[in-house]
């Protein structure tokens, strides 16, 4: 094994020994394509999430609990996984049975749960993407993967950025990150997109603005 390490490295060094120096990377592309205006960014996020078949809702901090309860009921979710650190008030009026992940649920137990409710780390307007980093109220990666319904709460404007270049600096690469753009989908049949394969087939996004 160490032999191959040395061998591959030596081959690389020989291969590029006479190569010219690389041209410096010019980052003259845009930092963002969308306007720096919170209201318009939120509209864009909404539009792009919906374009990839996420269901998007607008509410205020006071309305989260009612909306979560209604969405769970409408989707017929009888049990809901609660990640550690999820604000208790979000599920205050929901009728579904809470399944705590402490101690950790097995994959089979997760598969038996109907839904999961989480927050997120950041949302990207231009691409309609929500990023989870396993922080408080988001849980480990499996929680938002195995149940078929994912309700995700995004706090605007503080969690919304315009673009990928603006999102990366806000994320900690040391944490496991999941970037989600709409529900699970595939283009594998005739290169045409259809939604709903292994990940949650329904993604409900709650955009929460204060005031």
């Amino acid at each position, binding site marked *: 094994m160490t032999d191959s390490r040395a061998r591959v490295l030596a081959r*690389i060094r020989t291969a590029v020994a006479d190569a010219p120096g690389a041209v410096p*990377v010019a980052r003259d*592309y845009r930092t963002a394509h969308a306007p720096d205006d919170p209201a318009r960014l939120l509209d864009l996020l909404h539009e792009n999430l919906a374009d990839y078949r996420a269901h998007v809702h607008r509410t205020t901090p006071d309305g989260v609990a009612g909306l979560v309860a209604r969405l769970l009921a409408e989707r017929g979710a009888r049990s809901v996984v609660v990640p550690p650190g999820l604000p208790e008030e979000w599920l205050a009026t929901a009728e579904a049975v809470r399944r705590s992940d402490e101690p950790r649920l097995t994959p089979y137990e997760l598969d038996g749960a109907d839904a999961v409710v989480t927050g997120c780390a950041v949302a990207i307007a231009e691409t309609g993407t929500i990023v989870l980093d396993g922080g408080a109220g988001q849980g480990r990666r499996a929680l938002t993967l195995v149940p078929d319904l994912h309700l995700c709460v995004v706090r605007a404007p503080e969690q919304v950025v315009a673009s990928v270049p603006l999102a990366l600096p806000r994320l900690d690469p040391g944490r496991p990150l999941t970037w989600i753009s709409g529900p699970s989908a595939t283009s594998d049949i005739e290169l045409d997109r259809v939604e709903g394969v292994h990940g949650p087939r329904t993604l409900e996004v709650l955009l929460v603005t204060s005031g």
Partner: protein
Amino acid sequence: MSGTFVGMPAFPEAAREAVGDTTLRANLRHATRTIRDKRARAVAELDDWAALREAGKRIKDETLRHLDAHLLRLEESVTAAGGTVHWAADAAEANRIVTDLVKATGETEVVKVKSMATQEIGLNEHLEAEGIRAYETDLAELIVQLGEDRPSHILVPAIHRNRGEIRDVFREKMGSWGRPAPEGLSDTPAELAEAARLHLREKFLRAKVGISGANFMVAETGTLVVVESEGNGRMCLTLPETLVSVVGIEKVVPTWRDLEVFLQTLPRSSTAERMNPYTSMWTGTTDGDGPSAFHLVLLDNGRTDALADEVGRQALRCIRCSACLNVCPVYERAGGHAYGSVYPGPIGAILTPQLRGTASEVDASLPYASSLCGACYEVCPVAIDIPEVLVHLREKVADQGGKGHRLEKAAIKASTWVLDHPGALGAGERLASATRKLHPKRLPGPGVGPWSESRDLPGLPAEPFRDWWRKNRT
């Protein structure tokens, strides 16, 4: 067990069969045209596309120029984050490393994320021989595996199959691999996707070992990135206790920030989406989240040979988006299997002969599998000048002689001599013109015969242009 590409005929012969297969032609035409227009629209949304493309090219060039340093840094970062790094000089060594790692867990089955690197090294076949069953979980890979077929596209390995064929494969084969297809399965994509969901779920839930590749590895942070759509990737990366990732050494990028370029260009180029549904990023292991053991196998397997070629090394910039396949008129008609490799299409035509050499007939024929129309270069998000590399590889193949090329070289030399002696050229042209009534419309003989099977030569003109000029303008 899916088929392999061993013993493939040269491209022209394989392509002839594909061209005559009307179902295949219709499937490829439909799929590539669907994605072509969508890609163009997704790219047009970004008015700085040219700058992103140039930045992507330069990041990759800089990475390749100092690949040793970036890999060492990556190794350090991954190790610091709790992962273990292995180095594999070739396919056999990579297969051995992975097999030993799986055996050490005591498991006899693994779930796999779609990965070009593991296909390239024939990992599934190797594991099978060692008594370990590998389940492909990407929908298209599942179709290929169940159908005992070969992949024909980088992104959509089952692109050569239409919905009706996929339904038939599912109905016939799912039962022998696990949960059978639902009764009365139709050919609607939604139902087919649902069948795959049900079939694979039991495998995901019980899986103890996952095997993946990666789209990017960040040297600075030790982060690996997998870009996908279905969620099968997330399942394999998250639920098992042990994760083994086999990744080509060229997949490293120096910094976290570099992802800002590729996460914009890759989804739009491959599936024509602003962003693919799921992207997973992980750095080593994390307590209480995902696998507790992570192994990274860094794969050379011919990449350093390509790196040593000053023209050919640009092929290592490739981020496996497939845009060049989707836009290629030759791929559209010949299909992916004709390329005799897991890397079909224009990128395959320059990558395969560099990774495997040009000793076999099919590999030596690949650089010629292009009309040099340039559509591939135009859409490449890292600006690989594929036609330039094709011509360069043609020089190498011609230089090594071999079947047909000695005769060809003699003919080319003769044509050069004639063309370099306009006196002789003019005489030849005049002789041809004078005897033009005797010329057949169809050419006889080997080589040019097939050309004239579908075309008539134009009638030869009464006189060459240079004679008209001499009579009328001097």
